[in-house]
Every structure is written in C-alpha cells, then in structure tokens.
C-alpha cells in the first residue's frame, strides 16, 4: 500500500507544482495579489508531498519491501541499514527523487526567507522554481517511477552496486545535488528579474548568500566525489576528466565566475547582464549534466542505465527551460544593463578577466566532453579527447587566474592604484622565486613540482600580505567581515590545492608488482613487505585480505590491509588500503592472485607513494568553507532582518536607498 501512497504523493506534488508555477507568474503579470499569494502555500504543499514520497521510499528500503521493483533491484536482506538508506539514491529513479527532494528543500527555504522581497518579485522567483519542479516531477512520474511494483515479489533482492557501498558515497550525491540544484535559486532570480524587466542591486545582495551556499555545497560534493574515486576505484587517481565528473565541474566553473560577478553587480551595479547570463549558464549546465549522465548519449564509468526515452524527455525540458530563458535574456536583457564605470586597473577588471577564464574553461570542458558526439555527428569515427586535451588546456586557462588571484583584494573598485600593486607583486614574486629555488633541491628539479611550490607561495603570500594589511589598517572588529574572511579562506584554499595537485602529480611513485609472502619492495623510501593473503568476512561480503607491513629505515610505519571483496551477488570490488599523512599517502591495492594453485601465494599488488595528495582535498574544503563563511556575512543578514522588522512603507525606502 505504501508505494501507491508514494505515487499519489508525487502526483499531488506535480499538481501543486503546476499551481506554484502558473498562478504566481500570471498574477505578477496581471498584478493580481490573490494569484501571487498562491506561491507560498503551493510550495509548502508540494514540499510536504515530495518529502512524504521520499520518506516512503526510505521506508520501503528499510522494511525490505521487495514488491517494489526499485527496492528489489538495489538492496537485499544482507545489506546493512545505512546502505539501505543510501540505496535510495543508488540508481536512476531514486536519485531523481533525491533531486526533486533537494529542489524542494531549496524552494521551502526560499519560501520561508523571502518575506522581505517585493511581492511580485518573490512570486516570480517561486514560480520559476515551480516550473523546474513540474519538469522533474513529470520526468519521474512518466519515465522513471521509483514506486513501480514487482509481481510476484521475490524472496530477496539484487544488490546495491558495490562501488556505492562506501562511506564517501553516503553523502556525496546529496551534497553535490545541494550544489547543482542550489544554482536554481540564482537562476530563478535572474529569470524573475528578466520577467520583471529590472534588476535591483538589493535583490542581487539578497541572492548572493544563496549562490555562495550552493557553490560551497557543490565544491564539497566534488571534493567528496574525487576522494571517493581515489579511495574506492582503486586506480589511485583523483580526477579522470570523465563525462560525469565534467558534468559536475562545468557548473562549478561557471558558478565560481557567478559568485564573483554577483559581488560586482551587488556593489557597483555593473555587469548586470553578465551576472544574469552566468546564473542562467550555471543552472543550465547542471541540467545538462543531468542529461548527459542519464541519457546514455555518452559512455562513462559511472553513468546510469540509459534509456533514450529519458534522454528525449530531458532534452525537451532543456529546450524549454534553457532555450526559453536564453531567448528571454535576448529579448529583455538590454533593459537591465547599466552601472558605474570602471578603469582598466580595477577590481572589476580583475574579476572580469577571471570570469572570462572560468567561462572559457567551462566551454573547453564542455567541448571536450561532447567531442565523441561531435565525432559521431561529423562521421569522424569513435574519437574522444582524454586527459591530454584537458591536461594541456585547463592549466593554461587557470594560469592567468592564479597570477591575478593575490591582487584582487588590493585593487579598489572603479580605479585601482598601480603603486601598491607593484609593491605586493614584487614581494610575492621574491617569495615565490626563493621558495621555488629551495624546493628545487628537494624535488630533484622536477619542473611541475617547482611550479607548484612557486604558484602556491605566490598565492599564499598575496593572501597573507592582505591579512596583515587589514590587521594594521583597520580598527578591531572591522578587520575581517565574514564576506572578506570567506574570500581569504577560499583563496588560501587555492594555494593549498595547488600544492596538492602539482606536487602529487609530479612526485608520485607507482609500482605494479608480483609479490610472494615475505617479499619486500621499496618505493618513495618506504619498504612494503607483503605478508600474504587470508580470507575475511563482512556483513554482506567476503574478501581476500592482504597484509602489507610498511617500514622506513627499519622503523615500523603502518600495517595496511587491502581487500578484494566479493559481494552477495558475486560482484567483485577492490578496497584499497590507504595510510594517510600530511606530507604523503601510502596506498596499496590488491590485484589478482598470480598462481591459481596457490603454491607460493603470490599476488599482484599495486603500491603508491603519493606526496601531498591530501592537500588538494584540504584546499577544496577550504574553498568550501570560504563559501559558507562568506554567506554568513552580517551585511546580507542584518539588512534582511532590518527589512523584516520595519513597517511596510519603510521597506520600499530601504530598497530605494540601494538603487543606483
């Protein structure tokens, strides 16, 4: 009975989403308050039913309801309860339900905290979110029903893909969807502004924390995904330029451009059209990512079971939403252009250059991702551009950003002072060169590693000098407002990230070896002794578990136990053993037994020594922290509470103050 309730809940949610999308937008157009007032109750109602559907699916998983096809396909009696919850988003249908669930979380938050926005504007924003809901609810109901029944009910189910049975996977999808879907808020703001024909700076200020939070979630999600690939896939890599990774990375690149462009628009009123275009792009790329992952148009290591019908549906939805909003932009955008002028040497220019680089990089990634498709279209055969293409172009495009990054804060809005700039540049350059020379001795003259040290020092010194400058020049309490602290955190994160990427890329050592028990292999100064393999057992798997004892100069360092697991349905999954450290990771993955008869018990092993690799995730987390901290700025908050507290006539005057 409960699965049918879930289905009914989704149908009711779809009807409420229709009400939420059509009535408020028409109401805002006709200036009809009654119709606009539908927006919030409809959003709450939709949220209620979507949450209900989601909870019912979780319930079905927790209670082994194998009469539900989706539950039977993705779980079994032996699967631990926590993985039965994450199995909800372990395959296509459920992950769409997670998508719409998170869209509703954002919509509810927006409905709750949008009290101070002008009535018509809030109605339009919620209406646009309603349109997106309609699309995805219809998609779930017509092409990917998670509540479909399976008759007769099997005694036991299949299994959750063992690749997904990992702690990293429990929170990676929800977090990354928080980011993806979070860009819908900025998108809805832009569309509402285009529909209304004007973009107030105050509204951009109001949208900024939302975009920052979405961006921070996306950053966290990508970091978690990269960490999961590193720990779980057993290849020792952290980024593969896979279509699905690219699908999450493109919105991130555009989103990074967007949070900076929003700052310009909010503070100076310039780049309005650009900000609007970027918010359309960021969300469109999120939708495009959904399309690429689920349509089967591109093959990837972790794409979902594909179905052309689903692809066609999302494509039609893309055309309506993205095509429609870009057409709207073409027709209405000129009306919201304007703002204060700025000189060549100014913070606006620096941000604009960065924006351009991020956007071009996103386009470059898009082109590379779609290349196999272009090859098919032009009848060039099966071609794809892999890491060589991305590995060459991406660093080139990021180079200007890294070079400019330390100076952004020093540049004034409107017109910067070249004098201060020269002084800072000289100091950062000296520090970078000095550290690079010292580093050259430690890394055997490997160019990439030296470049990594120099770039990281360049960025870090720039950030540090600015921290010192603020400390000296500003009175206590006004030195580091949250918005600025967040920016400094994120930029420092870039420095840490650079160390992680460039040092681990150039200094890593790998060895694929056949080892018999007792044999020792040395890489990166560490001695790895193989002590053989024995059988072990988990809740829903059995495994061959190897033991590798690591020593350095005779002193014990770690005992590592990589596994080769066989899950309930005979799926095999490698569990690599990682011994983490601040300056290096040791990583062992168990391969195949080398002799079937087990005479000497030799196995194929893959050993890695990965210096500083942890820093790249740590840098990513710093960037995420920066996003969250910035979003907490009192400037965004106080204004809001002040507006809520004051009486209605005051509200308009406060908003009027901010007009340019």
């Amino acid at each position, binding site marked *: 009975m409960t699965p049918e309730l879930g289905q009914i809940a989704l149908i009711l949610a779809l009807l409420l989403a229709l009400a939420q999308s059509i009535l408020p937008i028409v109401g805002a157009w006709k200036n009809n308050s009654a119709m606009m007032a539908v927006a919030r109750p409809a959003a709450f109602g939709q949220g209620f039913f979507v949450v209900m559907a989601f909870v019912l699916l979780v319930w079905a998983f927790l209670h082994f309801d194998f009469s539900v096809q989706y539950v039977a396909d993705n779980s079994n009696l032996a699967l631990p309860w926590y993985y039965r919850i994450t199995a909800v988003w372990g395959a296509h249908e459920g992950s769409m339900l997670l998508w719409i669930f998170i869209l509703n979380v954002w919509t509810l938050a927006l409905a709750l905290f949008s009290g101070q926005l002008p009535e018509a504007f809030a109605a339009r924003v919620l209406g646009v979110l309603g349109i997106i809901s309609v699309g995805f609810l219809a998609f779930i109901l017509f092409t990917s029903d998670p509540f479909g029944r399976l008759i007769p009910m099997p005694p036991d189910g299949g299994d959750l893909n063992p690749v997904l049975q990992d702690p990293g996977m429990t929170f990676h999808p929800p977090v990354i969807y928080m980011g993806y879907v979070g860009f819908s808020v900025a998108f809805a703001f832009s569309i509402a502004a285009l529909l209304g024909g004007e973009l107030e700076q105050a509204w951009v200020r109001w949208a900024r924390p939302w975009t920052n939070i979405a961006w921070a979630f996306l950053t966290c999600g990508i970091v978690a995904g990269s960490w999961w690939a590193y720990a779980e896939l057993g290849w020792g890599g952290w980024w593969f330029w896979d279509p699905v990774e690219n699908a999450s990375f493109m919105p991130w690149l555009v989103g990074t451009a967007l949070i900076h462009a929003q700052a310009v628009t909010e503070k100076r009123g310039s780049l309005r*059209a650009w900000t609007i*275009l970027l918010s*359309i*792009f960021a969300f*469109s790329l999120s939708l*495009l990512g959904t*399309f690429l992952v689920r*349509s*089967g*148009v*591109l*093959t990837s290591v972790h794409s979902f079971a*594909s179905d*052309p019908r689903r*692809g*066609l549906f999302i*494509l039609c939805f*893309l*055309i309506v939403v*993205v*095509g429609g909003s*870009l*057409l709207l*932009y*073409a*027709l209405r*955008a*000129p009306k919201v252009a304007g703002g204060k002028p700025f000189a060549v040497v100014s913070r606006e220019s620096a941000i604009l250059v960065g924006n351009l680089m991020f956007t071009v990089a996103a386009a470059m990634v898009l082109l590379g991702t*779609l290349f196999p*498709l*272009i090859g*098919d*279209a032009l009848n060039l*055969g*099966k071609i794809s551009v892999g890491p060589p293409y991305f590995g060459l172009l991406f660093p080139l495009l990021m180079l200007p950003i890294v070079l400019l990054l330390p100076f952004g804060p020093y540049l004034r809005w409107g017109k910067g002072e070249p004098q201060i700039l020269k002084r800072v540049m000289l100091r950062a350059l000296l520090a970078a060169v000095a550290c690079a020379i010292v580093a050259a001795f430690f890394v055997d003259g490997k160019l990439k590693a030296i470049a990594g040290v120099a770039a990281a020092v360049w960025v870090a010194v720039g950030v540090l000098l600015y921290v010192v400058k603020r400390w000296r020049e500003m009175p206590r309490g006004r030195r580091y407002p949250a918005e600025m602290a967040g920016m400094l955190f994120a930029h420092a994160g870039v420095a840490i990230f650079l160390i992680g990427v460039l040092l681990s890329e150039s200094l890593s050592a790998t060895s694929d070896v056949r080892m018999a028990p007792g044999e020792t292999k040395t890489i990166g100064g560490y001695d790895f002794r193989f002590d053989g393999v024995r059988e072990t057992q988990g809740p829903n798997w059995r495994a061959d578990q190897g033991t590798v004892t690591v020593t350095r100069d005779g002193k014990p360092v770690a005992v590592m136990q990589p596994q080769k697991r066989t899950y309930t349905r005979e799926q095999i999954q490698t569990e690599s053993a990682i011994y983490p450290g601040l300056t290096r990771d040791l990583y062992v993955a168990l391969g195949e037994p080398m002799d*079937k008869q087990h005479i000497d018990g030799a196995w194929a092993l893959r050993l890695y020594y990965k210096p500083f690799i942890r820093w790249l995730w740590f840098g990513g987390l710093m960037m995420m922290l920066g996003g969250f901290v910035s979003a907490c700025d009192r400037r965004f908050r106080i204004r809001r509470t002040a507006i809520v507290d004051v009486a209605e006539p005051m509200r308009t005057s406060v908003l009027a103050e901010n007009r340019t």
Partner: protein
Amino acid sequence: MSRLIPFIGFLLLAGLLGFGIWWNTGHDQTAIPSPLINKPAPDFKLPLLYEPTQTVTRESLLGKPYLLNVFASWCIECGVEHPVLQAAAPTLGVALVGYNYKDAPDDAKAWLATHGNPYSLLMADTSGQTAIDFGVYAAPESFLVDAHGVIRYKHIGPITPEVLDNELKPAIAALPQEPR
C-alpha cells in the same frame, strides 16, 4: 543581436544532443570496431590442448583461411554457441580452430567430451596472455583469418544462427578466392 548569441549557441548544442539520442538508439555504444580488422593477426605461439608439447604459431596456420573461436569451459555463452558451431563446422568452408581461453586443460577436455568437439585444431591459452594481443575481452569471440594471416572479420559474443547466416557466411564468401 549579440544578446542572441547564447540562444543560438544553445540551439546548436540542443541539435547535437538530439542527434546523440537518435544516433544511440540506432547504434550500440559498446560495439567498438576492432582495430585488428584488416590487419595481420598478432604473432602467437600456443600449445595444443591435447598434446601440450606441440605448439601452433601464426606462421604454421598460413596458407588457408580459418575461423578462430575463443571459448572456455567456464563460459556459459559458449555453451549457447557450441551447437551452432558444431552444426555449421562441416559446411563452413574454412577450418574451425579452437582457442581455449584461461581454462584448466582438464576442465576444457571434460567440457568438450560432454558438448562435442567441432574443432579441427585446438590450442590452449591457459594464462590468457596471447588473448591480450588479440584484444579479447571475454569469451566467446571469433576471428576470421584469411590465407595471408589477415583478420577479416570479428564477432564478439556467441555466434547465433542469425550471425552465422547474416555476417559470418558472407564474410567467408568475401574472402579472397585463393587456395582454399
């Protein structure tokens, strides 16, 4: 006008994606064209299954076309194609060479004893090393090699009666009409 550029760009993208959907409904993405087609078969030297002291090489098979059939006793699909091969072997027009892949010799012999042995020659690649040169992903796979040792046709998966009639037989008929 310049405001229309993003919209036009998107239309191009949508066209490409639409093409992608249409293309993928008609084409199997997993069908990777073998880079070996119309290339000489890789060099190999493998022992005979029944007489492991004797070996077969690429050179020793030159002169006559043959169908190299990769199979294993552990492969369920091989059991599906085996009756088809057995029925077709006498009228195939080319020699059927068995390639026993990653199999324990005793298992293979027992399997052939129960299912029958249609092969005129049987070699064993117990380690699966040589199969890597042939680009074998899994059993069963079949390679049609002409008299000059050039691979002319490749099929991944079991040879069904349809594959036999629609692909394999035309491929054999299209072989250069040299000493057969």
